């Protein structure tokens, strides 16, 4: 980590104009900047989701000049979008504005990054502008491998929604559920590893069953899965049995659950052994890092981005940090919680680099709450550190909710899931 010299600092800010530039950036003391490193340095953050918004906020708190690029005016969270499907939440309850970030001094630009020039340290925006950066943070979430299932495509997702990015897709799937006749089958095509939110498909099946049980009790939920195991499996299956009897059926890979083709005209899904007809079909495709990360050459052959486990700086392009779902983060899952934690550690490292201070030891946390019903919550937790093997679980910590627990315990966890959502969204966009 090199300390940024006074000369570099002047070069960046344009020599004689340094003081006034700093003034424009809202930095009060040039003497402070010269003494403590390049406080005029500019960090650009790509993506205003869980990773990007948190990183921008914590960089700003550390006194860094930061611009956040995000195409949407408001962010609809994937977390809790399953409850919109279940009918307990409205889309407005999971929609967040960028006003608070703006008010805290983050420059929020409504645009899409179309190109990243790692050598020239600049990004190109769809709107035509080019922005220079000293460090870049890339948190674009995921994109889909549209060609992994025959017959599925972006266009097909208008008939068989993925709803794995929240917003119009969530509302479309909810509408299809509302229009579904009692006695129909809701088919959920689960994705192969790695994918965002490991318990997400199974929470979705739960919340769909919750809605169907109360409104269309003769219906079924069929999960077709290429995998033979999933997150919190025992807890989910116990809960399903207890709350929904035989309504939810899970077909693992070894029983022919891998789907090779879909047909939107006949609403059929082709598994390895059978064809299935769905009243509503929810296809969650295989995933890669966000397309801008792929385009910038930040990903390896896995489709995700290798990073330094402490700073999240790309192992491919120096000066660029990749966080959130797009990154390869060792034992950390692809979750909003993990993205938030990675963002804080990344902001702390970037601030130290800019200020010429040592990079502090990092620690990561994750907890994924899932609701099997509005009053029945389960969770999986972990605390993580950097070891020689990368980001690893702290042994003895974390784990899943107890298998045997009272109704009150499950109810408490459901209550805390709501508390978690209120807190993380305040921590990220508040």
């Amino acid at each position, binding site marked *: 980590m090199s300390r940024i010299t006074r000369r570099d600092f002047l070069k960046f800010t344009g020599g004689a104009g340094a003081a006034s530039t700093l003034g424009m950036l809202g930095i009060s003391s040039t003497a402070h900047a010269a003494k403590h490193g390049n406080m005029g340095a500019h960090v650009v953050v790509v993506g205003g989701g869980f990773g990007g918004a948190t990183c921008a906020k914590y960089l700003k708190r550390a006194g860094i000049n930061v611009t956040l690029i995000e195409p949407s005016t408001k962010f609809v969270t994937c977390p809790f979008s399953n409850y919109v499907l279940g009918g307990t939440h409205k889309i407005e309850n999971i929609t967040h504005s960028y006003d608070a970030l703006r008010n805290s001094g983050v420059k929020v630009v409504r645009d899409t990054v179309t190109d990243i020039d790692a050598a020239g340290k600049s990004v190109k925006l769809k709107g035509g502008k080019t922005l220079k950066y000293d460090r870049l943070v890339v948190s674009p979430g995921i994109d889909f491998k549209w060609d992994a299932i025959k017959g599925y495509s972006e266009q097909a997702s208008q008939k068989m929604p993925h709803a794995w990015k929240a917003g119009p897709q969530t509302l479309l799937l909810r509408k299809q559920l509302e229009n579904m006749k009692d006695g129909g089958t809701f088919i959920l095509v689960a994705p192969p590893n790695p994918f965002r939110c490991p318990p997400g498909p199974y929470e979705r099946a739960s919340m769909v069953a919750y809605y169907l049980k109360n409104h269309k009790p003769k219906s079924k939920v069929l999960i077709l899965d290429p995998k033979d195991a999933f997150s919190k499996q025992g807890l989910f299956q116990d809960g399903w049995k207890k709350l929904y009897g035989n309504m939810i059926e899970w077909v693992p890979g070894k029983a022919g659950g891998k789907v090779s083709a879909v047909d939107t005209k006949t609403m059929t899904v082709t598994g390895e052994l059978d064809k299935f007809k769905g009243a509503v079909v929810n296809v969650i495709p295989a995933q890669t890092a966000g397309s801008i990360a792929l385009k910038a050459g930040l990903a390896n052959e896995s489709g995700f981005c290798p990073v330094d486990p402490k700073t999240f700086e790309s192992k491919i392009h120096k000066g660029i940090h990749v966080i959130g779902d797009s990154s390869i983060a060792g034992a950390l899952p692809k979750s909003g919680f993990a993205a938030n934690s990675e963002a804080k550690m990344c902001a702390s490292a970037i601030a130290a680099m800019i200020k010429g201070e040592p990079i502090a030891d990092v*620690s990561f946390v994750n907890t994924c709450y899932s609701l099997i019903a509005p009053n029945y919550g389960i969770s999986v937790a972990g605390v993580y550190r950097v070891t020689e093997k990368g980001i690893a679980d702290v042994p003895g*910590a*974390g784990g899943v909710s107890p298998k045997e627990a009272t109704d009150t315990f499950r109810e408490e966890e459901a209550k*805390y899931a709501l508390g978690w959502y209120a807190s993380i969204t305040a921590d990220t966009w*508040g």
Partner: protein
Amino acid sequence: MQTVKSVITWIVLGGSAATLAACTTTKPPAEKPAAAPAAPITAAAAANMGSNCFTCHGPEGRSPGSIPSLHGKTAESLVKTLQDFKSGARPSTVMARHAKGYSDAEIAAIAKYISSFK
């Protein structure tokens, strides 16, 4: 994990922060495995650990929802509660699973950081 235990024992047995600092300042920080923090916990490392609590307990420990706020609690009371979660003396849904992720020295450092918000 042998090293972790011996370091903790050493700290508990009275190795002062100053001695620790003197012994370790020559080592570059990047070379130490973070799972076995042999150096004293810096304020920045404590902030890194503590900021992860805010994801559930709200910004600066001010919770907007059903999880209790941490804001306004003293370092002593935070240490006591976290130790009780860790030992199981105080039952919890999730806190034991988190508290077990931190050494005694780390709990003290986190408590100090969280109680610093006025």
